[in-house]
């Protein structure tokens, strides 16, 4: 396959970036998108040029490190697929592919396609946990958890924290990410004691980090590589209303 790549290049956080065009040939359909970028980088290095920086690690769709907005869609926009699992057979010979970093104020670009997602860490630090010190936990079966609740918690907990939701949202909103954690813990009895404070703190942090808010387009759900449903956002809204009404 011969492709025309338009890739966002930006030296560092202070510089302004621009889309640069690269012609790349000899791409085979079995390559993953990141392997295609590897090959491009190998050639750039051989030509004495600066390779394209991008985040990646596990390359099996679970660590959440890879990102990239490909032709206007986060992770390329294929259902349940992260960029590292996207293969070049989804593209056609002669295609022009535009690759951009996640764009959101709360995800500043560090270099090229690499962005800083520590805002997500700080939101979790605001309350995305159950305060249970190591040791002294009761037996795992002491509190039965109905299977539907455990399943619903797992649905939400599948979030990989990649940021595709905030990147694809026209409002740069992290609601799906925050909701996934709130909903995960709100479905479990162990999450009950901190239920109210958790949602209030996490939402306050989300606002403070400069994420936008939800206008209910559901673009995040469509782009989420783990197919997390916006029903979790509704759940978070309920949790928020509950905590507010109770004056927590």
């Amino acid at each position, binding site marked *: 396959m011969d492709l025309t790549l338009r890739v966002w290049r930006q030296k560092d956080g202070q510089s302004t970036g621009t889309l640069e065009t690269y012609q790349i040939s000899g791409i085979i359909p079995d390559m993953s998108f990141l392997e295609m970028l590897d090959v491009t980088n190998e050639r750039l290095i051989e030509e004495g040029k600066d*390779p394209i920086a991008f*985040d990646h690690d*596990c390359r099996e769709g*679970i660590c959440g490190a890879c990102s990239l907005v490909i032709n206007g869609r986060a992770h390329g926009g294929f259902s349940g697929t992260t960029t590292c699992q996207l293969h070049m057979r989804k593209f056609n010979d002669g295609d022009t592919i535009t690759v951009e970093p996640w764009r959101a104020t709360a995800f500043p670009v560090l270099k090229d396609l690499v962005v800083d997602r520590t805002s997500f860490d700080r939101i979790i630090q605001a309350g995305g*946990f159950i305060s249970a010190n190591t040791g002294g*936990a009761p037996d795992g079966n002491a509190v039965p958890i109905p*299977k539907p609740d*455990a399943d619903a918690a797992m649905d939400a907990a*599948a979030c990989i924290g990649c940021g595709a939701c905030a990147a694809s949202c026209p409002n740069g909103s992290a609601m799906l990410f925050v909701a996934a954690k709130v909903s995960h813990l709100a479905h479990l009895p162990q999450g009950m004691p901190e239920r109210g404070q958790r949602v209030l703190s996490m939402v306050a942090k989300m606002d403070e980090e400069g994420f936008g808010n939800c206008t209910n387009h559901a673009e995040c759900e469509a782009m989420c590589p783990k197919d997390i449903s916006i029903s979790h956002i509704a759940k978070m809204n309920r949790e928020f209303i509950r905590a507010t009404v109770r004056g927590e």
Partner: protein
Amino acid sequence: MDTNGSLNGNVPAGPLAEKWDNHRFNMKLVNPANRRRYKIIVVGSGLAGGGAAATLGELGYNVDCFCYQDSPRRAHSIAAQGGINAAKNYQNDGDSTYRLFYDTIKGGDFRSRESNVYRLAQVSANIIDQCVAMGVPFAREYGGQLANRSFGGAQVSRTFYARGQTGQQLLLGVYAALSRQVAAGTVKMHSRTEMLEIVLVDGQAKGVITRNLVTGEIEKHAADVVIMATGGYGPVFYLSTNAMGNNVTASIRAYMKGAYFANPCYTQIHPTCIPVSGDHQSKLTLMSESLRNDGRIWVPTKEGDPRGPAEIPEDERDYYLERMYPSFGNLAPRDIASRAAKRACDEGRGVGDTGLGVYLDFTDAIKRLSLPVVQQRYGNLFDMYEKITGENAYEVPMRIYPAIHYTMGGLWVDYNLMSNIPGLFVLGESNFSDHGANRLGASALMQGLADGYFVAPYTVGNYLASQTPGDYSADSSEFTQAADDVKDRIKRVLSIDGKRTVTSFHRELGLICWDYCGMARTDQSLTKALDLIPALKEEFWENVSVPGGGDELNPELEKALRVADFLEFAELMCYDALVRKESCGGHFREEYQTQEGEALRDDEHFSHVSAWEAPRNGGRPVLHKENLEFEEVEFSVRSYK
């Protein structure tokens, strides 16, 4: 090769089942009010590192935790699919602490330390309780009780799981606990920061030198104790199921400073990975072993058969596992299944474009169980397979091939998980201790969390109780020297300005390791590897091309430093494999096999841990042996016929 007396594992006295309890009682404690005066460095934020950092933070210590990823939530523990073992006996099927202990020792081919393994089995139950308390959404039965499954050929159902994402859920539990401590101010998290050197002061580990991967700044961090939980060294083979960034740098740096590296030749191959599709391949994807429950593995009987699988009639197919191991068949253990696949491909009977693959065929399963049942059991795996290969495995058989998955070797540690360098603790996959020569399925997560949550917090406290808090300074000459060494190394690698990319070296190194120190090793192949690796290392330092500078985000530089360390390590691994003249677990020497082609252990000569000390002035590494004494179990031979 120089052999000193047996290394002392500092195993407490007393009956096996009471060692840990006695030891805990005998350990010194740090007064709660004093704990914040101690500073602890934790390198790595996976199950072991993150778990230790969070727990030590909860106890009130001052913790600095480092990870190279952009967030601790991305540590590669996240990728474990299958589950986590625990001797809970919830299923009332005869499980017990002792049985888990025994299975782990036997599974490790009697090459692990009995006392450590027993402790692992003991704390396994606490791990599940702790994880449940922290909100890990384990699978549940309709009655609300925890669900279990049998995994990796175990006779009991002791594996807890969260769909196919157990590692992810456990890691996110650790990450949550860690985040809570970050918020509480007890843990300071340094993400996108890579440890490049360890600093010893008067022979004690007192800190690390790190590189900020965004700014390139070389930082000096001093502390009372250093904990490394930096994972395995699988990517020395380039292609593995590990993450792209996983590396051996922290371990090899500690090794260079005098820490012993134990059993580097114990590497685990996983039989059911998606085969390599070409030179571009950067990583291999594991498919759950559970596929072997219903899929049948075969290759054509004819060499180089050009026909597609559907055109090959039944009598021209070789279901080799069923043929060779009639009682276990397709469920033969990982190492045995892997070697059998390699043999078939070496005979020219491999399938796919590269000839490096065997069929895993569900045609019979679909006939027997119906398509919907197969879809329900394995649908997500079939989807993943289709995503990667573009093939529909309901219609054409899957192609699988073994891949490097886990490394049992690691830095040598005593019962307290402290290396031979005082003040350097090593946890999780990066130590050598619990899995012997072969790790059982669903045991890696167990060990990581056991070390991080339940062992290190005690033993590190015991060590600290003997230390004066704050007895370190990042401004001392040792730190300055170490930082200068790191800067020089970076400067050197950037100044070579050669012709070959870092990846091309890594790929070549990986091929050498895979071909000569992979699933089957011989004296000849290892000798060859030991010729090729130093030559490659030499070429690397003359001809590698690393673009960009040191004071910026430079992924090529990161890779170059890691590959340089893999080149150091590969030699050690091959050398260990050369001198271990027996076959055991993940280490298979073709010279040492039974007539049926099974691993032939030599308990008389090799029932020891090989702990390697870095050569002082060139030459070969120095061997220290820790003799493995088995008080409770007796040697037996694994048989899967």
